[in-house]
């Protein structure tokens, strides 16, 4: 029958008294851990997907929307741009632009977005083929690791795309008639590539020529050229810039030769003022998103701080009240040979036990919420949440939890250690 067990028995003897303290503590720890995890994982995803891209070029609209749509594949495109408008970007002697990746977006397969682009995008994102080969011909696709895993796709599988961006499971959607063939599957890269279906830009045009109805009112949709382009099944790969300059894509991802040069810094403004194009600096747009995040997080931070203080107070009050009821017990322990230090330790242990249980429940809470988020958020935001990942910060949080438990218990513990045996025994 050691002190730790006695502390435990004291707490569980009147469990309702301790319950409020434990729950409040769990709430406070849970919120802190949840905020830390979400922040950490969001930061990493933003960073992983920056892929050294200095500029995103698309149709006029919101620069943030353009960035989110072209780099994170969230939300809708600002519109389409004609190949003729962006010819200069493909010039290998361009003084500012080193390299570009064209994107055509707008269709999906079971909630996963189909992106028309060139294989170079894999190098930019650091993604590699796990099996199969790169997409070369129209209607050949390489699917991301998650797309293949969730939909059970294998090399050689064929599927039809959905027109527009729709959620998985919505059966009342329009399908394109053409079959896509899986020619390659990517290895997991921890980037948005895991969640995309990659095809040629030209595929978009052909897919939309097959039917001439209903799609004209979708502004967000790439390649609405319904002129009589003959769709041939076995199409030889043509370099994008040799195509008709009236053809459309959605956006361009751009890398600069020298991102810090004077010309580079002025480049987006020149484009925005002098052309029909929209140029967005992704690093800037993302820092704006983060700023919004931060101010939201600050408000939550104040809330969490308040809950933490209340939970510490609750531990303090619970111990203090139980101490009044247990004065006689404490005096009794002194007559049985317990020194003052033991009584001090007894009460401190009770505070620490509440803190440890609260901490454990709190982590359970936050990672449980993360698991629920992981299941729901992924489709909407291309934001992969891991519920099983624990941060170093959560280790520090444990130390902080112990400290709070100690702090809340220290005054009652001093009180307990000061118990005057004779007076207490005489009173009763």
């Amino acid at each position, binding site marked *: 029958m*050691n002190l730790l067990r006695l502390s435990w028995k004291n707490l569980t*003897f009147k469990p309702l008294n301790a319950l409020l303290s434990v729950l409040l503590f769990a709430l406070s720890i849970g919120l802190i851990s949840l905020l830390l995890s979400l922040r950490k994982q969001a930061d990493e995803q933003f960073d992983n997907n920056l892929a050294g891209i200095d500029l995103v070029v698309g149709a006029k609209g919101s620069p943030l929307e353009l960035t989110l749509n072209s780099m994170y594949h969230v939300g809708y495109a600002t519109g389409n741009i004609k190949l003729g408008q962006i010819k200069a970007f493909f010039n290998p002697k361009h003084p500012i632009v080193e390299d570009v990746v064209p994107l055509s977006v707008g269709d999906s397969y079971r909630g996963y977005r189909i992106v028309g682009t060139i294989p170079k995008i894999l190098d930019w994102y650091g993604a590699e083929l796990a099996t199969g080969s790169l997409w070369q011909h129209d209607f050949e696709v390489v699917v991301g690791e998650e797309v293949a895993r969730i939909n059970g796709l294998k090399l050689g599988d064929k599927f039809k795309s959905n027109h527009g961006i729709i959620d998985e499971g919505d059966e009342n959607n329009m399908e394109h008639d053409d079959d896509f063939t899986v020619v390659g599957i990517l290895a997991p890269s921890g980037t948005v590539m895991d969640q995309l279906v990659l095809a040629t830009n030209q595929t978009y045009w052909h897919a939309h020529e097959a039917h001439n109805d209903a799609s004209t009112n979708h502004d967000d949709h790439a390649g609405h050229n319904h002129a009589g382009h003959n769709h041939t099944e076995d199409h030889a790969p043509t370099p994008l810039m040799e195509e008709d300059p009236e053809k459309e894509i959605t956006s361009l991802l751009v890398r600069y030769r020298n991102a810090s040069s004077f010309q580079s810094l002025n480049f987006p403004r020149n484009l925005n003022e002098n052309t029909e194009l929209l140029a967005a600096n992704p690093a800037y747009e993302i820092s704006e998103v983060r700023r919004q995040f931060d101010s939201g997080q600050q408000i939550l931070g104040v809330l969490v701080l308040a809950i933490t203080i209340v939970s510490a107070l609750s531990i303090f009050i619970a111990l203090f009240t139980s101490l009044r009821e247990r004065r*006689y*017990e404490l005096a009794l322990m002194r007559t049985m*040979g317990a020194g003052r230090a033991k009584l001090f330790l007894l009460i401190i242990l009770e505070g620490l036990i509440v803190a440890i249980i609260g901490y454990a429940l709190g982590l359970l809470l936050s990672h449980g919420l993360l698991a629920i988020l992981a299941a729901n958020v992924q489709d909407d935001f291309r934001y992969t949440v891991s519920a099983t990942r624990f941060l170093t910060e959560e280790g520090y949080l444990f130390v902080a939890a112990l400290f709070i438990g100690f702090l809340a218990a220290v005054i009652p513990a001093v009180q307990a250690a000061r118990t005057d045996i004779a007076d207490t025994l005489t009173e009763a």
Partner: protein
Amino acid sequence: MLSSNNLSFTYPSGEALKFPDLDCAAGETRLLLGKSGSGKTTMLQLLAGLRQPASGEVIIKGQRLSQLSGTALDHFRGQNVGMIFQTAHFLRALTVRENLAMAQQLAGKPTDRSRIDGLLEQLDLGGKGNALPGQLSVGQQQRAAIARAIVNQPAVIFADEPTSALDDDNTQQVIKLLQSQAAAVNATLLIVTHDNRLTGIIPQQTHL
């Protein structure tokens, strides 16, 4: 085994009390009698080292209590003194058996299950080891308190009005048990009381 001389105590109010000298042998039972307010409980607390005397000395088992302080005194008390109070008090969250084990542990002794179970058996509490103290009757509680007081085989047992809350039958039983248990460990038993039912049973008496 237990002796005191020239003991006096000054209350915070300034009121001073002088106490008669005691000299009890091992195994002796003695009553400490006096009217309410005569300072019986105070004297018992001085003898048990729970209060500091203004003057005088208490010697238990050859040890002057004034030479011990703080933790050492707590430890000495745990090992050599058993205490029984008017109403029995326990660590409410622990079972009767755990309370006895706690008494052993706080005195710095290893838990001795057979000693605990043997005592509970002798005190007719054999089936109550796993009960919480709150579930026992008053008489059972007082017997459990006796078990706790003697579990460490103390040199001295102090009992403060142990029978005032009990009826005649229970009083008889509790006193008999107290005496027999004290005798079994050869402890000095000092009973503070104003209970006239005891004066006929125990001839050694000191009056305040």
